[in-house]
């Protein structure tokens, strides 16, 4: 126990010392707060220094976080994915556990462990202040990028889709712009990472603009049935189409059967 503690303090000191040297007092306090939160809520799976914990089988309780950056923490914690409740196929989105301030502290701490993308600034994903014309062009471009890069997993309306072995790409409609940006930047779980070389920041913004447009646009064609494509359409055709029509057929036939029954009885 003592050895453990010593090693830990030593390691932490080594990790934090250079950072402390050239950051402000506030930053240091934030990282310290983050570390405390991390030790309580995350270290069990990710290791005391975010080095990751292996299970006996060699797979991971939690992967190393040394190079995931603040953006990954902000995404994972602010969407409620982390802390993961129990090991499973996928960490689902859920009610978030840490508030903004705590999330910031956790992010600062994990960022201090190594490299990785920072939390994106607002102007990277916000379309505020754009003219209608610019916005329209952005949306058009974003739609094409979205179809080329995201729909394979998230479906054409962002309604989500299945991934192998019980995994799934979640519905991405109504997700905070910042988190969409961070998702692209960090590639959570089985999602690809779309680095800035892959989809430049301007294009990431375009994708976000397109997704927001989908949210805001009216449904021109009626109820979209979850936006799942032909499967839900087939169900409607059978239930709302054939089912209703057969009901009508029964109704029409019953109307005369009844009167003919009376006639039969009268004749008998």
């Amino acid at each position, binding site marked *: 126990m003592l050895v453990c503690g010593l090693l830990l303090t030593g390691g932490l000191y080594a990790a934090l010392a250079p950072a402390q040297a050239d950051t402000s007092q506030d930053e240091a306090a934030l990282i310290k707060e983050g570390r405390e939160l991390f030790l309580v809520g995350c270290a069990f799976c990710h290791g005391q220094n975010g080095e990751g914990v292996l299970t006996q089988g060699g797979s991971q309780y939690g992967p190393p976080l040394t190079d995931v950056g603040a953006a990954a923490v902000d995404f994972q914690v602010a969407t409620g994915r982390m802390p993961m409740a129990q090991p499973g196929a996928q960490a689902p989105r859920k009610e978030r556990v840490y508030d903004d301030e705590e999330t910031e502290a956790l992010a600062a701490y994990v960022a201090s462990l190594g490299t990785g993308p920072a939390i994106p600034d607002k102007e990277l994903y916000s379309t505020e202040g754009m003219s209608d014309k610019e916005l329209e062009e952005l949306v058009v471009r974003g739609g094409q990028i979205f179809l*080329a890069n995201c729909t394979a997993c998230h479906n054409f309306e962002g309604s989500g889709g299945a991934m192998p072995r019980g995994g799934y790409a979640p519905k991405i409609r109504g997700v905070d712009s910042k988190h969409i940006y961070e998702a692209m930047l960090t590639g959570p779980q089985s999602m690809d990472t779309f680095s800035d070389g892959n989809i430049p920041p301007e294009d990431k913004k375009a994708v976000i603009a397109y997704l927001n447009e989908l949210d805001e646009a009216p449904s021109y064609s009626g109820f979209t049935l979850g936006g799942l494509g032909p499967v839900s359409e087939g169900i409607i055709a059978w239930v709302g189409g054939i089912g209703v029509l057969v009901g009508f057929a029964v109704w029409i036939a019953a109307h005369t059967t009844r009167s003919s029954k009376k006639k039969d009885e009268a004749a008998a």
Partner: protein
Amino acid sequence: MSVDLNPDLSKVASTNGTTPATTKGGKAAGAIATWADDRLGLGGAMKKNIRKVFPDHWSFMLGEIALWSFVVLLLTGVFLTLWFDPSMTEVQYDGAYDPLRGVHMSSAMASTLDISFDVRGGLLMRQMHHWAAMIFIASMMIHMLRVYLTGAFRKPRELNWVIGCLLLLLGTIEGFTGYSLPDDLLSGTGVRAADGFMKASPVIGTYMSFFLFGGEFPGDAIIPRFYAMHILLIPGILLALVAAHMLLLVYHKHTQWPGPGRTEGNVVGYPMLPVYAAKAGGFFFIVFGVITLLGGLFSLNPVWKFGPYDPSKVTAGSQPDWYMGWPDGLLRIIPAWETHIWGITLSWNVMLPILVMPPLMLMILMALPFLEAWITGDKREHHLLQRPRNAPTRTAIMVALMTFYGLSWAAGGNDIIAIKMHLSINQITYFMRGAVFIGPVIAFIITRRWCISLQRHDEGKLLHGYETGVLVRSPAGGYAEKHLPLPEGKAYTLTARDDDPTPETVEEIDASGATGRTARLRKLRAKLATVFFADNVQKPTTEELHESQHHAEHELHELESQIAAGPNRHGPAEH
């Protein structure tokens, strides 16, 4: 109280009598009609048909759903042709839908978007056309189930059954060519898949693909070609087949359920005019109305969200329309079987589910009437329907086929099932691989036994009467439920069926001196027939029925005297 097993039927079937059931129109209308009739001579030809009689049962209207949705397809389809441009020339979209403005796409796609956003009522028409297509094929299928399960396909209607199968096939192809026309991402993915399927056929695959696409996929010929097929070739054949189907129907007359006054030689129901025409006409408006509501309320194929087809793009939830779903399902679950010989790859994993199974299923469907007639040796004409329970093996065969279809179909939606039910897509695949084989067998056995126990139930009702719900306590203290004889009409209906024929025995065949191939075939047939009819319950004989009637009368008297003797109907009798 006796059931007359041989009622005098000549007097009952008044509806096929000699006086035409025509309406008395107004004088002016009558004059015009006479004028036209004198010139066109339609009256003579129509008289017979106007007096055609249609029996009434909801299940006889399923085919009408197909007919009327076909009419809706024709009407809305013609509207779409006015605006649709079947060309793969690349244009820059400049219509009302902002998120695609400026994107390059084919004229076909651009004109589909125009129909959706710039043509008044266009989106409604597109959606109605597509919903009608889905309903058209679905209604053909349930209509077919009705025909099969009631034995309406038997002689002399086998040919109409075959025509029906062809209609189903053509409807499916028509639907496929139709939803490929807009050239959007989803339909393009479907065409790409079809290209792959064709190329999977050994030796001729690549040639076929080049032939259809006029070169390498996608080329710029496929949409115009599909268009010609979709609005000309297939609708033409469909129309001709529908006409043949209806003519045969009129010629054969409608089948009917057995019942008092209904025989193999008559049809009891309503005359074509006015009753039936009014009902059928009314049903047309209902079908039209339901399709319009669907078209107005529910989104179908929102091509603007898919965007134009681009081979480098793909979307999750890429499924075909529902009627193509079951081969897609088989394709999704089949293991990756391939054979490599002489430098050729035989992709069983594509050939079996797509190139072998659908044609095989169609062939099985078409062959069903002939197979059954051969096995049972039944060469008689049938105009009275059978209840599904009275042909347990037949019913079970169809339920087994339906189970196979349903499971394959569900497999086609494996990704949606996985996300909606939080299952692993891999587990679903493994489950389905077994289920498509085991499921139909279980369904067959259960259905067959179920039918037979329903038959036993009917027999019980005939011989022992129906359950009255009146409980009687005997002097000894035991309780028993009293049964009363069925009303005559019901009893007649239940007994109005033929006994199953007794199959030949092997000894009989041997004794007949048959040898070689003929003998072997006859023996096979005899064996199949034995299995086909095994355990079926035959209807009670006349003697059995008479005896049960005596018994019932006796019981009734007993019950009456018990009630008369007791203090009240329900309470215990004092001794």
